[in-house]
């Protein structure tokens, strides 16, 4: 039994069957990639996992508990963090403040009103945030306005913010989309380091095969809303069904 169990999930948008009988099992402490051509239902599946969409039928269990019907922040508090396609960070806040917020969320839960304490006196939180920045090589940008960071560094910060919550499952939605080669390689290295050093499960949706094959231990191929095959990267590479899905029947 994996940490994430998706069973018979269906989702329709009008006449479009976005997800049809999706079954997926992600084993604990692995890197699991979900690939597929455009329109295969990858993003819909991800949105179901984080509570943004509710499927028509089926079940999604995280660590034995159903995530369906829960709000995104509740699912996050269960231990699932999400990294977005375009980095979602607090652009108006400084880098260190960005890093402090998930640590506050971990300590205080979904809402807690510390209206008369001074944020500068939260030494424990600041220290943790600084350590995290240090490990991401962002310590020199501590006081910068986070909107002014480079794309690659915004991505690092976002991944760091997710890690600061110590999630058990990290979901990444095309984390290297629109990145320069050097930034892509940096991100791959960072994710490798994370999966080596931590007890964490990573599920990644990605178009870039270079990223997928450098990271993934298991790969699920999705086509037209249904999982085609699930296997190790080596077996996926030469799989005829995969070639067909990506390149069309004539290939």
């Amino acid at each position: 039994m994996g940490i994430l169990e998706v069973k018979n999930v269906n989702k329709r948008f009008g006449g479009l069957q976005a997800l049809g009988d999706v079954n997926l099992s992600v084993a604990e402490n692995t890197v699991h990639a979900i690939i597929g051509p455009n329109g295969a239902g990858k993003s819909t599946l991800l949105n179901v996992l984080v509570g943004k969409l509710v499927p028509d039928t089926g079940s999604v269990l995280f660590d034995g508990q159903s995530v369906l019907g829960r709000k995104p922040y509740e699912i996050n508090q269960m231990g699932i963090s999400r990294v977005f396609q375009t980095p979602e960070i607090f652009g108006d806040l400084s880098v260190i403040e960005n890093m402090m917020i998930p640590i506050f969320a971990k300590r205080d839960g979904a809402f807690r009103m510390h209206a008369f304490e001074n944020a500068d006196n939260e030494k424990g939180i600041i220290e943790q945030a600084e350590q995290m920045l240090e490990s991401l090589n962002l310590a020199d940008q501590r006081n910068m306005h986070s909107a002014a960071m480079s794309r690659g560094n915004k991505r690092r910060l976002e991944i760091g913010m997710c890690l600061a919550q110590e999630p058990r499952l990290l979901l990444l939605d095309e984390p290297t989309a629109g990145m320069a080669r050097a930034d892509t390689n940096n991100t791959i290295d960072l994710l490798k380091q994370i999966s080596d050093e931590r007890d964490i499960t990573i599920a990644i949706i990605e178009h870039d095969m270079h990223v997928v094959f450098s990271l993934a231990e298991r790969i699920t191929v999705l086509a037209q809303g249904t999982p085609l095959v699930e296997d190790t990267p080596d077996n996926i590479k030469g799989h005829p069904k995969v070639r067909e899905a990506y390149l069309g029947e004539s290939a």
Partner: protein
Amino acid sequence: MLGLNKQDTTLFLIVVALTALAPFILNPFPTESAMAQFNAGYPDLMQRFVIFGIFAIGFNILFGLTGYLSFGHAAFLGVGSYAAVWMFKLFSYNVFPAIFLSVVIAGLFSLLIGYISLRRSGIYFSILTLAFAQMSFALAYSVLSNPKFNLTNGETGLQVYTDDLQMFHGDHLPDLPHIFGLLTMRDNFVLTVGGWDFNFNVGYYFCALIMLLAFYFSVRIFRSPFGTMLRAVKSNQTRMYYTGLNARPYTLAAFVISGMYAGLAGGLMAAVDPLAGAERMQWTASGEVVLMTILGGAGTLIGPILGAGFIKYFENIFSKINDTVLHSWFSFLPDGMEDFMVAIVHPFIGKGWHLTLGLLFMMVVIFLPGGLVEGGQRIMRLFRGKKAAKEADEATQSTPAE
């Protein structure tokens, strides 16, 4: 000092000094001089400065921090005023219970309106708050003032009559709002120095003291983890929800706090003048506090106070200038020219002061998007030179709220 960092302490002390010395600062011209009409150091106007200062400080906690633009905050101001006058009518003219009730009632009222309005964000939130405020206005103006159940006394406005209950009112107590019978809000001491008359008014200093407290609490909120969360709401709600935080209670808390500030301001308005009218709830009054906050600098600490002072000064001073005054100003010109100048300036004064305010507001928004505070910072930089300017730039970068 008092849990504030060095920079904030300096700012706080400046505000303390300005409010304490306001009777002097706002009265720069001798009473008999032609410029005396530009003096703002009379009790009524000084009280308005600080009361609307409180209103704008509170509004800034919502708008400046979370970015939620409420167009209905005057409703809480009005509710606060009604609550205070009812306290005068039923119990006594003591201002403390009255103000206490104003804050509580406004807090409950804003909890209700906020709970519903905050289901939407952006323009829809603004429209919802506007709708609620206009409903409150209609209720106060007509619905709740029928002979069977007269809560607001409609058009006339709620006021204290001699046959009111006033349970704790005694013969030894003054017949106007007072502080435990020791001082009344209208007690005024005039210090005459040379040609100058300086007014020291109990009502003003009472409101000023409360404004300083309100300002202090707002600084604490800005610098607290709660304040950081509110800025996070403004910055990126998606990230907030996917970081395990529920933005709704944060925004609701900010809404209620700012509603209580508005109620406090409303209560003080009733305390200095025991009367509450429905027009206090009208949408123009809600719009005014938005203007004050933006004009002064939304999201800055001192901006709302400056904005409130600026607008109230224009409202009271410019609206008083009439054609006779203009003629005396331009009397040095030949007759034709004099009339010409008066005709040009005429639309901008008296009842036309809104036109002047509108132009100034446009100029501030276009050239100083950060409001008067940004203007002040630019001037400071000019004085300090380029090196200091660079440092200031970095400082503002690390503390975007300033």
